[in-house]
């Protein structure tokens, strides 16, 4: 268990927050807490990790470390787009 700091970018405002969290926390819980904190409004979200080789879609069910998220990483939040 290691503490790390990541920057999370809001899907529609483009604003970001710096978050200190545990590398083993599941991404789904991070999103849940960002809703609790009021950074994201109610709803479903996805996320992508910004890397030097482009963005990579993240798995909500995996921990940040299993998703390849490292200290000072930037996570881009996306809205769920289920409708047709």
């Amino acid at each position, binding site marked *: 268990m290691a503490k790390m700091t990541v920057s999370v970018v809001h899907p529609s405002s483009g604003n970001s927050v710096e978050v200190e969290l545990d590398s083993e926390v599941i991404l789904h819980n991070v999103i849940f807490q960002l809703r609790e904190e009021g950074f994201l409004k109610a709803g479903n979200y996805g996320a992508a990790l910004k890397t030097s080789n*482009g963005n990579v879609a993240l798995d909500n069910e995996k921990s940040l470390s299993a998703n390849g998220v490292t200290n000072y990483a930037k996570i881009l939040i996306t809205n769920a787009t289920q409708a*047709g």
Partner: protein
Amino acid sequence: MDKIKIISSHIAEESPVDRQERISWWRQDILRKAKILVVGAGATGNEVIKNLALLGVGNVFICDMDRIDTSNLSRTVLFSKDDVGKKKAKTAAERAAEMSVYPDFKVDYFDGDVVYELGDGVFRQFDVVIGCLDNLNTRLSVNKRCCLLQKPYVDAGISELACSLNVFHYPHSSCYACGVSSRDVAEERRIRYSCDVFKKRAIEEEKVPTVQISSAIVAALAVQEAVKILHKDVLETEVCFGKRYFFQGINNNFIDMIVPKKEECLYHNSYGDIIETEFTNKVRLRDFLEYVKEKNGEEYTLEVGSELKFVISANCRSCNKEIKFYKPAHRIYEEDVYCEECQKAGKTTNGYTDYKYVLDFCHDMEEKDILDMTLEEIGIPKLHILSLRNKDDKYIFYELSGDIKNVMPNIY
């Protein structure tokens, strides 16, 4: 010198596709021959179908099980007030035919449940599949068939001013399911099925806020990807598969991302060589198994996937008494799983139910009566591809190709 005298003049007839043909790499002949399967004829499906018809794509197959509702009219270019109550798939097909730049445009439609009633063989006929769906269950089912037949799958989705486009081509890339979390799959099953098998009749579908402009944006992107996929042999730039493009219209934020291939993804399977047969799904199971045995000189077992479970019996959800079904699970609703007495007495407590089902069908199966049922009766859709397994676990794949002229009379 005598002045020239013009005797008659002819104005060159302009082709309706003249402007697009001026694109240096554009091959209208490729589009005219192309076959595209559009799953979903709602807001996004309407836009996709309109784009395909105007571009001069020659063959389009449209699937949708719903009827046109007044609330659809602000988002559906193919439907008008007089169409309320009509079937979406059929109406969209008629409008597409009127709109197509070609008089010999071929369009067919399927008005039913894509998950259970659309045979895998349908997918085999198409060059690209475009999903314009509103739920995860059908998206996963379409993805499964695209994997099994190795077809490019372009999936579009919208919400408010946001939209996303997924472009996959298994096994060359990840598949749609690689980008879906197991929690979402479990939640979807919980909403739609009771005890994970019997359908719930009234599903509380969440009404997602959407607007026509998002459908128009994502449909344009989806069809553009399809055009590029069709031109793959003549385009200098490669089409990127295994990608998701997210566009948030509020701040014009565009994110393109790679969807990595998941090693543990359950959808990474494909059919081997597919053998066409003259059979339709009206053939009796016994006769079909006999045919396979004769052709191969040995006994084969027909194996259906878990979504085509055939239910022999289930226990009443209230009093636990056994109820005979002899029906595919997808034709049983949760309220059917109560015995007559409990139904009469209004005892419909929501208990867990045990049920007996079969996934394997062969000459020496326990329930011999099933052998006299038709494939249709055991739940096999028209133009399906059947997996058959011998005693050494070697598989062969037979298609009910006799159904093709019924399923797609115009395209075929």
